[in-house]
């Protein structure tokens, strides 16, 4: 195959100098009866990431491999994959760090599959809609950010890059796709803490559902998988603390909140 689009990334997997590593890659195309794994050998250097290796496979060995990526630095949330059964961002996961002769690459779990390593994120985004939080939000420009040299502190409002790794790791979502799931519930907590035009009470109500925050069983796999320090499990528990307090107050306390 001729030099491909991402040839500048391909330099990490230079022939003859790297260590050969076996990649078992999940393959599925629409119309296949069942998925299967294809094996590839890629020479990896010390710095080669899983994404580099996959792109090298696509450029040099199998151009029909379908994968998704964008920013190359774990900010866009596009390249989430299950590598050796762990949820990771492929662009920042070094093959050498996996310490494994065989690297198994699969798409993220609990999502509808489109092809190969690409899942349909519509299911994922729909959960955010379900809590009434619009996916596109206006960001506030803080007064602090307007101070150029000697900027003292920035405050990040949203860590979540909507990569779907948390949903892939969650054992409850694995059994029941009706569960709202970590990403949307963490977003719900953010909306409750900082409404920005949303009605926090309405959001709270939605999380009080049988498929809402009470479905979580404290496995914390989502927080382990999250590449962006969202700590969804922690946020779900904060929602529950608030719900429990509200319910108890409604029984024992006064009518004021």
């Amino acid at each position, binding site marked *: 195959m001729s030099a491909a689009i991402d040839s500048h990334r391909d330099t990490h997997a230079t022939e003859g100098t790297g260590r050969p590593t076996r990649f078992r890659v999940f393959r599925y195309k629409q119309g296949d009866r069942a998925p299967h794994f294809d094996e590839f050998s890629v020479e990896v250097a010390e710095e080669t990431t899983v994404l580099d290796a996959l792109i090298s496979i696509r450029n040099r060995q199998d151009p029909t491999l379908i994968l998704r990526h964008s920013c190359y630095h774990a900010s866009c949330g596009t390249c989430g994959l299950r590598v050796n059964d762990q949820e990771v961002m492929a662009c920042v996961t070094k093959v050498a760090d996996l310490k494994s002769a065989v690297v198994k690459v699969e798409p993220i779990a609990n999502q509808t599959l489109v092809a190969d390593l690409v899942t349909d994120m519509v*299911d994922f985004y729909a959960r955010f*809609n379900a809590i009434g939080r619009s996916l596109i939000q206006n960001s506030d420009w803080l007064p602090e950010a307007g101070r150029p040299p000697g900027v003292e502190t920035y405050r990040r409002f949203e860590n979540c890059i909507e990569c779907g790794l948390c949903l892939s790791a969650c054992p409850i979502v694995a059994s029941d796709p*009706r569960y709202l799931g970590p990403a949307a519930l963490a977003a719900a907590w953010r909306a409750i803490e900082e409404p920005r035009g949303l009605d926090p009470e309405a959001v709270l109500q*939605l999380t*009080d*559902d*049988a498929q809402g925050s009470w479905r979580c069983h404290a496995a914390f796999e989502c927080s382990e998988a999250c590449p962006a320090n969202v700590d969804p499990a922690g946020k779900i528990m904060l929602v529950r603390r608030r719900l429990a307090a509200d*319910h108890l107050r409604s029984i024992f306390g006064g009518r004021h909140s």
Partner: protein
Amino acid sequence: MEERQRPAGDRIATTWTPSQEEAKPTWGWMLQAVTGMLVLVLVTLHMIANHFVVKSGLRDFADVVAYLSNPVVVALEVLFLVVVTWHGLLGLRAVLFDFGFSRRTESWITRILWVVGVAIVAYGLWLTWVITSYH
């Protein structure tokens, strides 16, 4: 022009309308937590009373009659049975509800588990009465 299939997202979103008729799951969860804590305490007492107090480690018939002759013991053991049954069946219900049954099936499961629970406690009370009235 042929009709486009509805994207998967619509399917998911429509199942998330909060239900008005069901009791809030908050209470079920709190009940599980409270019964769980009680079980922890009571099972420890139960273990000590039945396996550490008696020299042989297991109460024979005479030991059991002596044990249940104390009304406080009876009260605690009955309480233990009630909370452990409640906690266990509520937990079973949680596992079953992960199977994604219809709301109607779920209310049937709840009803059946209630019947099972009451039957278990009734059995325990009957057994206690039989033992304590043994001559």
